[in-house]
């Protein structure tokens, strides 16, 4: 096979040979063989180099494509994790709350459909009713956190398994910790990033902020008492008396756990609170839900 760009004249060829072949080989060839043989020999050598070069180019090209594909795969995974899981999670958690179809608290509404003045819940007297322990994955309560915005409402489901509860359902209740209304520490976990990130703004919570848990019939209004950052194995934060492993329950506590720092599993962000008061849903709406908390710089 002769290349199209093969130069027809010998003087051109010799110039090319000087460029591409080692000079000492050139010398020996010119002494022992005629110009035609020399030319064939060069062509054969050139073809060999070309096949070798082509094979190398193919391998490198394939490797390059694999690397580009891997890069696109990782980028797509990040898009999915950081963006798509939030979209799915928010939609799903909103649907769960809507599907509960619990009785609306009494609201005074004008003819225009505007809420005039909602009856403010008066703290009830006596011990709060105990919410019965639900089945795993069952949604038994919703959480309102005014600090996270006036529209913040998230379902609370039983269990803290990631693939079956925290990822698809939002906030999860630690099995074997107290239920709302039960003496002890009502402990819940939630994502701070991704999957709808129910606890995204957990670090904004201030001491005194309201954490409002609503079950079918009862409002439980907690107040934040402290926040801290702990190691992942520090189980005492969900002990019946927060921070004191082994002590028996002496109050109605709530504990929120989430990851810290964001996008890391190195530590946990913990918020503790205590029950301020409770009331029946039919009696009104907690005052904390009717006004936005003051901005904290």
């Amino acid at each position: 096979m002769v290349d199209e760009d093969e130069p027809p004249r010998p003087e051109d060829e010799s110039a090319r040979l000087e460029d591409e072949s080692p000079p000492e080989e050139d010398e020996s060839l010119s002494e022992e063989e005629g110009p035609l043989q020399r030319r064939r020999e060069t062509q054969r050598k050139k073809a060999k180099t070309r096949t070798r070069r082509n094979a190398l180019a193919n391998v490198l090209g394939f490797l390059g494509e694999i690397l580009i594909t891997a890069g696109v795969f990782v980028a797509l995974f990040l898009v999915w994790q950081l963006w798509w899981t939030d979209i799915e999670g928010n939609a799903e958690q909103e649907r769960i709350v809507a599907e509960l179809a619990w009785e609306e608290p009494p609201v005074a509404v004008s003819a225009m459909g505007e809420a005039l003045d909602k009856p403010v819940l008066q703290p009830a007297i006596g011990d709060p009713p105990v919410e019965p322990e639900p089945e795993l994955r069952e949604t038994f309560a919703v959480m309102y956190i005014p600090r996270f915005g006036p529209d913040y409402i998230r379902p609370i489901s039983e269990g803290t398994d990631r693939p079956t509860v925290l990822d698809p359902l939002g906030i999860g209740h630690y099995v074997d910790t107290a239920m709302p209304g039960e003496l002890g520490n009502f402990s819940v976990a939630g994502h701070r990033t991704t999957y709808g990130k129910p606890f995204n703004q957990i670090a904004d919570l201030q001491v005194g902020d309201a954490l409002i848990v609503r079950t079918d019939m009862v409002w439980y209004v907690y107040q934040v008492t402290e926040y801290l950052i702990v190691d992942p194995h520090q189980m005492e934060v969900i002990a019946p008396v927060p921070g004191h492993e082994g002590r028996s329950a002496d109050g109605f506590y709530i504990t929120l756990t989430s990851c810290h720092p964001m996008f890391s599993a190195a530590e946990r962000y913990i918020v503790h609170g205590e029950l301020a008061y409770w009331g029946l849903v039919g009696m009104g709406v907690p005052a904390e839900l009717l006004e936005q908390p003051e901005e904290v710089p």
Partner: protein
Amino acid sequence: MYGWLWRHLPGPTWVRVIIALILLAAITAALFVWVFPEISPYMPFNETTVG
């Protein structure tokens, strides 16, 4: 790999472009629905629980 794929797609260029885009969308959807949810539990972030 992609060159081989391109050469084996039928039809004129615009048809190949459309088929390639559909393939890309299908692969992305499969990743989003099945592959990524399988991988994510092994990722070293997003742990929110103690214990």
